[in-house]
């Protein structure tokens, strides 16, 4: 997994976060294991709805059920290891970037599709890009209107030229109707 490393380029040195040294009984391995157990069970039990068949004639439910149980078993092993060897707790979630990116994505989807029940028509690519960039830039503190607007307009122009004109994607540029 890549990280935007900031090593060696200055900036104030933060004190080591408490997480890095903490050993918690609620280790991330334990949580990961529990999640896997639940998801595995969901698939295994959900697969009961389909025909199983036997090995020679595998029905649609055969492999999903088997894999679901395997996932649960792996999850159980993880959870047990997590209990026996307390380790790092799950990393603290940073909600601001997560929500900003998801909201930017959602806003773009809304702009492209509209929301009939609310009377919102499809708004087209240009407005979608402006909205996406605007919302996404909220992910970082200290975003200023000027640069964000410039970036949004630039990307909107780029999208219109490259995606619609250049690649020929079927994206409406402007609001419908």
């Amino acid at each position, binding site marked *: 997994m890549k990280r935007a490393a900031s*090593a*060696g380029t200055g900036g104030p040195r933060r004190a080591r976060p408490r997480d890095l040294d903490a050993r918690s009984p609620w280790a991330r391995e334990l949580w990961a294991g529990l999640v896997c157990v639940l998801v595995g069970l969901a698939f295994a039990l959900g697969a009961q709805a389909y025909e199983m068949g036997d090995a020679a004639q595998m029905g649609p439910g055969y*492999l999903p059920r088997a894999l679901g149980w395997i*996932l649960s078993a792996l999850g159980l092993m993880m959870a047990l290891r997590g209990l026996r060897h307390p380790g790092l707790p799950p990393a603290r979630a940073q909600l601001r*970037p997560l929500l900003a*990116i*998801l909201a930017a994505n959602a806003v*773009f989807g809304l702009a492209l599709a509209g929301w009939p029940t609310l009377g919102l028509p499809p708004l087209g690519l240009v407005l979608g890009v402006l909205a996406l960039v605007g919302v996404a830039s909220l992910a970082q503190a200290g975003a200023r209107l000027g640069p964000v607007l410039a970036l949004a307009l630039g990307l909107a122009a780029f999208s219109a030229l490259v995606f619609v004109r250049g690649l020929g994607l079927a994206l409406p540029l402007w609001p419908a109707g």
Partner: protein
Amino acid sequence: MAGGLGQGRGVADWLNHLSLGWSVAFTWANLGYALLGCLLGTLIGVLPGIGPLATIAMLLPATYALPPVSALIMLAGIYYGAQYGGSTTAILVKLPGEATSVVTVLDGYAMTRQGRAGVALATAAIASFVAGCVGTLVLAAFAAPLTQWALRFGPAEYCALMLLGLIGAVVLASGPLLQSLAMIVLGLLLGLVGTDVNSGVVRFGLGRPELTDGIGFIVVAMGLFGYAEIVANLAQTDAQARAPQVGAVHHLWPSRADWRAMTPAMLRGTALGALLGILPGGGALLASFAAYALEKRLPTAAGEPRLGQGHIRGVAAPEAANNAGAQTSFIPLLTLGIPSNAVMALMVGAMTLHNIQPGPQVMQTDPALFWGLIVSMWLGNAMLVVLNLPLIGLWVRLLAVPYRWLFPAIVLFCAVGVYSTNGLVWDVWLVGLFGALGYGLNLLGLEAAPLLLGLILGPMFEENLRRALLISRGDWSVFVTRPISASLLALSAALLLGMAFPAWARSRRAAFAD
């Protein structure tokens, strides 16, 4: 059309193949696409925070209108191009642009501090070029015999091979074993969502018509590797990194003593990389780490700096290894149709998108594609060594672009790319969901790459499993009674059991702990 070329034995046939490949790769269009891929690859290799996996996923939908060979040429260029770009910033500003360049930082940056940045950069480029050429040669040489061998595979062998690929990917990778295995299984399960080809039943469709075709791999890739990476990057750095200062780079060409020191390391790295690239789960990353670890074990002559203090071997070996590995990791894909890592899994997706069924038959049914791609990889390496030396100043200046300008663009490309595959807004919601899921996985210490691998292999795996057992009438022993399948399974078991021994696990952790 297919029967025109020989069986692949003998130099004459081999030369025929290469000349066919040359005629395909050396058109203006395909040269242009190779150049574009290499440029893009170098660019994202230089920029931290975006890698070949996300880029290939984003560009896949855009290649839909291209002829298949051009699409593959461009996408391949992105992958091996990124190996070149990552080393530039690793050497100059201690910032590895790619995970595969992390080890290059050690000696590369040390050399920069000693005023030998130019030599380090030239070494990286030369080593990468030589290794890339050798890797392509290995690919060309092994393609035909491996394909012949693979044509004898039945469904049982395919299952065993896929299992080896999945387990190998986990064992040879860096994450904890249980977690990665669980992610593979989850990926397999997600790959089974949708209509079952055999029975026509829609599995886990939740009543939604959009799920009858399953969960698209582009959506998953963009969510897990595009959005989740962005959120993780933003969550980590809250202070804007100041633009790194780079002095002018002089004296590019290595001295004779430098050549003498770097050549053996380069050859060692190439050999190791070529070998490790073929292995499932292998590829550029493992190759670069292993090559550096090897160099550390070898003695240094008197008067030379130690490894880690600016020895030229510490740059030549990993850079050669990661390029050779990047080329040879195409071998399982092109000869057997099995992806050996997550990037190759996306290539499988790309081929499927263009209605090419990956497998040993590709060489016979579409030799122009096969050999054209291979020759274009050699051309790409040549382009890259030319691009990387004179244009270094430009690449480094790009580092000054703050991330806050970059990430909205990436979000945009992901969203547009996902929407353009099917024209459905549903996909936009789904990619957001996988973005959240990817971030959640990140918080729990679970890796996303095995999930993608499992997702793409899931349907293939089930089909072969079904067919194998249908033929053997439900007899599971078919997997161990057929010799090829049995040996592949034995290898998988050996890899897994090897993990159980603490000594092996410790050396694996040590190799990744730098």
